[in-house]
């Protein structure tokens, strides 16, 4: 359908628990500038900016695209912010891609980020809702029942999560941008780590990371 879209540049920051050395603007610029450099472009080459981020309570900053207009070279340009909850990284890329495939824009900068160290994720996930049972559950607390139900329905082995965590964490040792570098991790060390929300153990759980990832998407002519 429509125009072909190419990823012509990408860039990311090192992901870690706290990027205390940069503001939110600094964090996203780091990724965006790497993506522009990878694409051989400057800010002036970009037609539109699409930002993606999960709940604003994770940074305590409402509608961050407003604050980031200057930092992402978006002044005078169209700027969108996508928020589809946990899927937002993917949705942001879809929206950015749609802007090119529809023919609306030729070159789009898209950035997804979180700087959760600015706020407190457990608090942000546990705000009480009127007439609802108060749950201080965290993300894992909500997923755990679904995981258990799936395991019982499908007969998936009990250690499936352990094997996935082992594979991913060992792969991460080859990725200089990854938050967790755990070269000494083993099947046993994961299995023996603290159980958080049965069946999810501490070492099977994602970390809370500060980080940003940016891409430059472009039409066929630009790609050529």
């Amino acid at each position, binding site marked *: *359908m*429509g125009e072909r879209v190419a990823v012509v540049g990408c860039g990311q920051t090192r992901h870690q628990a706290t990027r205390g050395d940069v*503001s*939110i603007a600094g964090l996203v610029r780091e990724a965006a500038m790497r993506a522009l450099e990878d694409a051989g472009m400057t800010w002036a080459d970009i037609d539109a900016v699409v930002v993606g981020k*999960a*709940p*604003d*309570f*994770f*940074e*305590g*900053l*409402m*509608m961050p*695209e*407003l*604050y*980031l*207009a*200057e930092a992402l070279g*978006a*002044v*005078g*340009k*169209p*700027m*969108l*912010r*996508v*928020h*589809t*909850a946990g899927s937002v990284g993917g*949705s942001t890329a*879809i*929206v950015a891609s*749609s*802007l090119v*495939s*529809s*023919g*609306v824009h030729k070159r789009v900068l898209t950035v997804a980020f979180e700087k959760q160290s*600015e706020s407190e994720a457990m608090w*942000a*996930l546990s*705000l009480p*809702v*009127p*007439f609802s049972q108060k749950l201080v559950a965290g993300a894992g607390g909500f997923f755990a029942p679904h995981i258990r139900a799936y395991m019982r329905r499908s007969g998936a082995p009990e250690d499936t999560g352990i094997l996935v965590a082992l594979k991913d964490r060992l792969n991460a040792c080859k990725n200089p941008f990854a938050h967790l570098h755990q070269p000494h991790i083993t099947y046993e060390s994961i299995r023996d780590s603290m159980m958080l929300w049965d069946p999810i153990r501490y070492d099977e759980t994602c970390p809370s990371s500060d980080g940003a990832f940016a891409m430059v998407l472009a039409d066929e002519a630009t790609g050529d």
Partner: protein
Amino acid sequence: MRDVAVVGTAQSAHARRIDDRNEVEMLMPVLQELKDGLGVTQADLDFTCSGSTDYLAGQGFSFVGTLDGVGPYPPISESHVEADGAWALYEAWVKIQTGAADTALVYSYGKSSPGELPRVLSRQLDPYYYGPLWPDSLSLAALQTRALLDSGKATERGLAEIAVRSRAAAKDNPFATVSGDFDVDEILAEDHLVAPLRKHDCPPLSDGAVAVVLAADGRARELTENPAWIRGVEHRIDVHALGLRDLTDSPSTRLAAEAAGVSDGPVDVAELHAPFTAQEVILREAMGLSDDVDVNPSGGALAANTMMAAGLVRIVEVANRIAAGTARRGVAHATSGHCLQQNLVCVLEAS
């Protein structure tokens, strides 16, 4: 580009408080009225996009709960912007342009009543330099109004006349929060709220919801005899730092209006999302609207200002007048952020 039209609209009454219903309960009747009016079900809608903010709901991922009002089973193709529904409409329009959808449901909503909106909106500011000072939305609008008065582009009397005209026009709007006949001299005699703003210069607090269905080409003509075609929809953003902009102007509105082709034809009606009286003056100039253009016959945001919906409501009010045949071509505007930082302009036209 595909021809895309607004084929149906619905909105709730925008009330000072909707205490007896949560967001889902507030939205469901609006969606049902819209779908029933068009004779469609959720299955007929290829894409759904909503606009809302967690900071009003007081809960992360709040829009996910509101999807219950849409009936997302079997699973639907859906997206969301944490902004006014006008930007959700833009995303849906782009989706249709890709060819991945021929129809889209767009909705947005907000409840300001549970919190202190002016303080909540201070969280939209740079969290390092502005946020810690807690500048509320009224105070920032007051800065912009002061700048406009000092520039000579407006007077306090002129702003009061905008307020009086808007609330009088809203008498014909069954969804308005505030409407009626006010006397310019009487309201000018009231004390300032945050100088130079008086109560009449400010929007009411409103809870409510709005929804539209978009459709492309022949599908639009199947769904309605009077589609309101979107001839142009564009948005731009200005610099965030208040000290780096001229608060008496709106460059992003000017750019969006030019790109959308506002001046390509006559403007029979303009709905401008101006929650503060000074902002109507700024927007009229930035959009190049002549004095004889009918601005905000609905009463505008000075009559009803449901956060996250008031911009989409402007598009709805223009589309409705085109569908009713009282306007052939109109312009709708939506804004986001303090002091008109980000602006969207939509040009609509009858067949």
